[in-house]
């Protein structure tokens, strides 16, 4: 029982990490139709920047907030490169892969290749149904939930969210209503950056990150986003949790060597399902 709970809690925390990244994918895709494969890079950069700020003596809280802000700015920078001129969404996607590779190289130069971590919030572990749970897990879940709820409320319940959705739905008509579609696109990249940064700073105390960790983060975040057809933040959360929990149970009960393979097998099934659904919708 205690092992089961341990895997479940770890899986849920990983799930929220993927959900944050997935929501980044969703927001950027909804506004720009670009799948931003630099999404995982924001998490690594955010985490590493927080690490360096903490080492430089800045207190917890301030370091993490500054790192998230930096990740948002990096998102903005990547967005302004990926949305240059009148690139098609596919060209922008390829550009984001290039930016992810570039950011890996820069990260390796600045922080070297050793995986990094820092201590999260302290305090005694909580004991719950026989599993001892680090408080950081609760922080991951709590902060993620608040962030996701606020974002969902803004996107689905407010005028600003409508304007963002409108830019994606019909850029031509949106422009005529006075919306600066390019600016909305940049905003969506900055939000993606902030979400990646939040994921990074929350998770680093639990799972050390290395400079090339962004690839698997991007893939699993993307997989979770596909769960919601790349447009639904709610389903992206469900997808994130599904992947996080599957991954931890496979690692725990079977072998850690298989955890990525299992998650990727799930991704392939999902992609097949999504492709089929797209075709059915296209036919209608």
């Amino acid at each position: 029982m205690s092992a089961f709970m341990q895997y479940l809690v770890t899986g849920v925390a990983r799930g929220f990490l993927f959900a944050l990244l997935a929501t980044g994918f969703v927001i950027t895709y909804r506004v720009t139709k670009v799948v931003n494969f630099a999404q995982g890079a924001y998490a690594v950069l955010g985490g590493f920047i927080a690490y360096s700020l903490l080492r430089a003596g800045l207190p917890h809280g301030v370091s993490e907030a500054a790192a998230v802000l930096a990740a948002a700015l990096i998102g903005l920078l990547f967005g302004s490169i990926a949305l240059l001129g009148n690139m098609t969404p596919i060209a922008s996607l390829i550009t984001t892969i290039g930016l992810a590779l570039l950011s890996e190289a820069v990260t390796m130069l600045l922080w070297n290749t050793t995986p990094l971590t820092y201590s999260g919030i302290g305090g005694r572990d909580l004991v719950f149904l026989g599993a001892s749970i680090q408080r950081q897990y609760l922080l991951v879940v709590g902060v993620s939930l608040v962030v996701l709820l606020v974002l969902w409320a803004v996107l689905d319940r407010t005028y600003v969210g409508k304007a963002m959705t409108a830019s994606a739905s019909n850029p031509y008509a949106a422009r005529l209503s006075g919306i600066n579609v390019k600016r909305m696109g940049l905003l969506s990249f900055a939000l993606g950056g902030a979400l990646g940064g939040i994921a990074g700073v929350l998770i680093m105390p639990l799972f050390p990150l290395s400079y090339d960790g962004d690839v698997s983060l991007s893939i699993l975040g993307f997989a979770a986003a596909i769960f919601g057809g790349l447009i639904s933040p709610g389903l992206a959360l469900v997808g994130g949790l599904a992947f996080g929990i599957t991954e931890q149970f496979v690692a725990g009960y079977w072998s850690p060597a298989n955890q990525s393979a299992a998650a990727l097998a799930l991704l392939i099934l999902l992609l097949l399902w999504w492709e089929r659904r797209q075709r059915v919708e296209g036919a209608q």
Partner: protein
Amino acid sequence: MLLEIEDLVRRFGGVRAVDDVHLAVPAGELRGLIGPNGAGKSTLFYLVSGHLAPDRGTIRFDGQPIEALPPAARARLGISLTFQTVHLFQGMTVLENVMVGAHSWTRHEFVEAALRLRRHRREEPLIKERALAAIERTGLAEWAGTPAEALPLGRQRALQIARALCSTPKLLLLDEPAAGLRGDERRQLTHLLAGLRSEGLTMLLVEHDIGFVSDVADIITVLDRGRVIAEGTPAQIRADEAVISAYLGSSMDGDALDVV
């Protein structure tokens, strides 16, 4: 004059689609702009909206030159428009579609909405209120919660007008709003435009169909091959020799006489 166009020229290759056009529309007027196919009506419309740039000439709105401004900036000054081809925001309700029209006067940003700051708290209810008023005004109240793409064509046209009204425009540009409408839908549209006019809204109505324009416009300007060939009240225009010959000369196919 709310809208003043002087010496306006726009060429496409060797064709002068708009050739030395002068046009002045005072505030509160519903101006009709008609002409046979290829007369340059749509080109003129897009020059005013900002989707095309003129080769020469000036366009002043409320005394300010606007010919170099992009469409979004013109929208912020108070120029709104509806298209002949309906442009909707798919997957959004009628109310949500209309709310987007408010963008030309809202000021609050994403962060303010996320943190529920004052400007957001002040503007959000106002946006909804104006959108609902525009929906009411255009007779769409019972469809407010319906997905926009589910409306019939006549209602979609009304939705575009509602979206434009939500921006509280000073000038409304309408590109062939009656095209493709059924008889009863046309009557509703005539009624709506007449109502907006009586409330003092300035409109520039580009139309192919003389009958429809005559029912609503104060003054009609007739274009032919890029030039203004006549201007006057509907009665004057219908009796004008140059107009009759321009329409007869180019429309033996009869599209001037009925709606396609």
